């Protein structure tokens, strides 16, 4: 498990020192890998763009183009990341245009959108990029005016000197681009920010509302064919035989064939997960024609049996056996109950939990479950590919181009420099598009049919393919002594096919006797990261359990958590506690105060609270539930976040509100179940997604104000929503709900 509180600090490449003037001087190593453009290149750039580094281009007439390194899936990085550059570059945001960068890890960094990591990991490098360029522009002006660079000031894209000389950045850009990249940089103090912390509109908003072709599915080229895949009807099945004759007779159809994804013994990297290796492919001229031809395919499928995969990655190359059974949710649930009784792997132990539980005056034990979830990005999986013997062009929506490139290189037998991946805006991601099997499929299909191809999944293909949020369970136990004091805490979690436990998370560190254990059941149902992996279950179960423990102890649920955090701060138990108790308490206090918790005025609501720490940020919610038309309905939510400096407050608020809606929806409705290996939900008619009339009327979002380096926001607000909903539901219905999704449980009760 990751202990990621200090991960960035450990990896930090900067030596920082505060200057007396309030700025910060940094010795740069990130930028040292950049070369400033040589003279010829600087002057002959297309459209006269002078490129100061990978992120910044300026024209002679002072147009500023900033490059967004990371793909955009709605978390607004195309706005927030350039805002960071613009801040240190010191330009007028009105003059800035933003462009999605090419895939170029050497120049633009990791380019991975996920793990709530974009702003967090690019904060320093982008500030450096902006500051370095600003210093190069000052130096260029200094040389031109024959004055010391230290006397050249900047403001909103204009250089000036006390002698009265001024120049727009554009006038100095070509010269600046030929200067060496400075080694020491002065970064702004947060109090001097003029762009960061000021809300800026989504730079692609205009294109979104006018329906411009932003997304992968919108990309087309001349002569492009449409491809679809037919995957086996159930997990654990494979293709036995097929007859394409009727499908091939259909209008517009070019080819029907069997595609083997990975060759025998292919060493898969961590995100090369694919559910089926044996696909039927239909290629034709238009989407509708391919959809119709698919209906004419005659295919026989058979059980695949156990499948051996070779998986590489951090643990080294190893063989993994994927079991062949055709699984059902019912049997998986029964299996989980059996596994939960067996001994499990110890993940963390403090004190002597066994004795503490034996001597307890009261033991509270509760078990929680949650099903597989499908990501259901609004834009189904798709990718454009044009592969020839010499090179490959791939265009579409994905979260991590750098991860799939080595895989493509092996599959296509092309060197990486012959593979160009262009990133389009994504119609949602939620982790799903880190698994780029669909890109590899598109590439192999294009190579086979020798034409540019757009591979497109239908909604049904997308929902039934796998790469789900795993199925989880956890049993929590709390021991109270005769004075109703919490003396021991035990969590034993498991899942299909992975367990959810983060052993060093709260309340580890706050209880003398603590035990965390995990177990897992192998499965052929493929899984992947889903908005705050593992945390999205833990926060539901643990925060619901803590509510129950607080009640047994006769304590207010917020006060109970604050007491534990006080303990974790003043006298922490064990090592490697991965949260900061002060910041954790901070969001609880903020949400308590903003919501009027414990004060008169909210009597009409059933109130539930939950808080959680993940992906380096802290979140707390209070959910206010009413009964509407006989059903529990979350009408109002208060949220408090601590993610350090908030780059773009209005967009950050939007994302927290969205996470709250997503959390409520998945808590009540989200479930992907199987029967004999086949997904039982195939489209939005039987996979329920929260809708407009089910969303709260008010979601009030508050941020803790501090000057800490920013951390992520895409995932952290999501997990505790589940716990807060569960706790409000208890107040509303008078009984606890332990199994997600809650709606079927509610219906059973009626």
């Amino acid at each position, binding site marked *: 498990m990751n202990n990621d509180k200090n991960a960035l600090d450990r990896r930090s490449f900067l030596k920082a020192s505060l200057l007396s003037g309030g700025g910060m001087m940094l010795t740069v190593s990130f930028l040292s890998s950049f070369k400033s453009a040589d003279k010829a290149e600087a002057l002959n750039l297309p459209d006269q763009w002078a490129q100061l580094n990978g992120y910044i281009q300026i024209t002679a007439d002072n147009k500023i183009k900033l490059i967004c390194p990371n793909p*955009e899936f709605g978390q607004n990085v195309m706005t927030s990341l350039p805002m960071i550059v613009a801040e240190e570059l010191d330009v007028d945001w009105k003059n800035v245009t933003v462009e999605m960068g090419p895939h170029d890890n050497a120049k633009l960094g990791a380019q991975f959108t996920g793990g709530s990591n974009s702003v967090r990991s690019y904060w320093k490098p982008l500030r450096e990029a902006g500051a370095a360029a600003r210093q190069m522009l000052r130096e260029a002006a200094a040389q031109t005016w024959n004055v010391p660079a230290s006397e050249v000031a900047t403001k909103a894209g204009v250089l000036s000197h006390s002698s009265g000389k001024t120049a727009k950045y554009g006038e100095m850009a070509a010269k600046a681009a030929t200067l060496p990249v400075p080694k020491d940089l002065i970064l702004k103090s947060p109090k001097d920010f003029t762009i960061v912390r000021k809300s800026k509109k989504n730079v692609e908003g205009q294109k979104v509302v006018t329906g411009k072709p932003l997304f992968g599915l919108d990309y087309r080229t001349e002569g492009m064919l449409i491809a679809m895949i037919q995957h086996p009807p159930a997990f654990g099945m494979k293709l036995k035989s097929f007859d394409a004759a009727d499908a091939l007779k259909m209008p517009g159809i070019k080819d029907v064939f069997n595609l083997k994804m990975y060759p025998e013994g292919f060493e898969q990297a961590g995100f090369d997960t694919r559910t089926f290796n044996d696909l039927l492919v239909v290629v034709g001229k238009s989407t509708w024609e391919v959809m119709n031809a698919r209906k004419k395919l005659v295919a026989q499928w058979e059980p695949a049996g156990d499948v051996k995969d070779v998986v590489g990655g951090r643990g080294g190359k190893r063989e993994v056996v994927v079991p062949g059974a055709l699984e059902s949710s019912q049997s998986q649930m029964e299996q989980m109950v059996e596994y939960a009784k067996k001994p499990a792997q110890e993940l963390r132990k403090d004190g002597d939990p066994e004795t503490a539980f034996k001597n307890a005056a009261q033991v509270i034990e509760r078990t929680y479950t949650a099903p597989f979830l499908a990501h259901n990005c609004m834009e189904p999986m798709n990718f454009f590919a044009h592969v020839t013997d010499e090179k490959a062009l791939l265009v579409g929506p994905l979260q991590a181009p750098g991860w799939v490139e080595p895989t493509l290189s092996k599959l296509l037998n092309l060197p990486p420099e012959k593979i160009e991946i262009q990133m389009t805006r994504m119609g949602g991601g939620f982790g799903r598009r880190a698994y780029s099997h669909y890109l590899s499929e598109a590439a192999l299909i294009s190579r086979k049919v020798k034409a540019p191809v757009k591979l497109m999944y239908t909604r049904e293909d997308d929902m039934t393919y796998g790469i789900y949020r795993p199925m989880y369970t956890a049993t929590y136990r709390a021991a109270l002594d005769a004075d109703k004091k919490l003396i021991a805490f035990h969590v034993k979690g498991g899942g299909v096919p992975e367990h959810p436990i983060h052993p060093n998370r709260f309340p580890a560190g706050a209880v003398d006797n603590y035990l965390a254990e995990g177990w897992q059941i192998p499965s052929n149902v493929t899984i992947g990261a889903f908005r705050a992996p593992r945390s999205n279950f833990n926060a539901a179960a643990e925060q619901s359990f803590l509510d129950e423990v607080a009640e047994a102890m006769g304590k207010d649920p917020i006060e109970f958590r604050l007491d534990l955090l006080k303990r974790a701060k003043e006298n922490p138990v064990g090592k490697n506690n991965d949260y900061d108790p002060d910041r954790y308490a901070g969001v609880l206090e903020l949400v308590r105060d903003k919501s009027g918790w414990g004060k008169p005025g909210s009597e009409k609501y059933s109130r539930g609270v939950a808080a959680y720490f993940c992906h380096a940020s802290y979140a707390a919610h209070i959910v206010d539930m009413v009964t509407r038309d006989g059903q529990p309905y979350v009408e109002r939510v208060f949220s408090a976040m601590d993610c350090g400096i908030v780059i773009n407050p209005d967009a950050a608020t939007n994302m927290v509100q969205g996470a709250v809606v997503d959390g409520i929806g998945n808590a009540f409705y989200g479930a992907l179940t199987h029967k004999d290996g086949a997904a039982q939900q195939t489209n*939005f008619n039987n996979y329920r997604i929260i809708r407009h009339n089910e969303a709260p009327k008010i979601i009030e979002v508050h941020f803790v104000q501090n000057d800490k380096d920013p951390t992520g926001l895409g995932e952290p607000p999501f997990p505790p929503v589940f716990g807060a909903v569960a706790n409000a539901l208890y107040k509303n219905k008078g009984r606890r709900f332990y199994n997600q999704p809650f709606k079927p449980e509610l219906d059973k009760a009626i």
Partner: protein
Amino acid sequence: MATFNLKINGKTRAVDVDPATPMLWVLRDHLDLPGTKYGCGIAQCGACTIHLEGNAVRSCQLPVSAVGKASVTTIEGLSQKADHPVQKAWLEHDVAQCGYCQTGQIMTAAALLKRTPNPTDEEIEAQMSGNICRCGTYLRIKEAIKSAAKK
């Protein structure tokens, strides 16, 4: 295959396609109007919403043969310069996250306001609940519709 002369965004466009082809794919594949989105193909998500004689319809369930002489408006034809009150309100409230569903949301909202210029919250909820937003921007959608209604 058959030829259809369609009235789309004020212009007549001819297409030669299978008469059963849904308008969604006629627009996207044959007329280079990709603003109308595919989300589910079964009229459950609203991403493909267009206007037929001013009424919001799901283009994934509308065969090209059923359009006849009716006028079709897509997001590309809703306004000339992104200045329809609903589009302006969407920008003012910075509604979009991923943005994929928003053209469908805007088309549904524009049709709602045409018929009901000052909708109540309940009317907005009733009309907009056929459009899924997976990012959960429903609050801003509602606020944007209310802003647009005032203009």
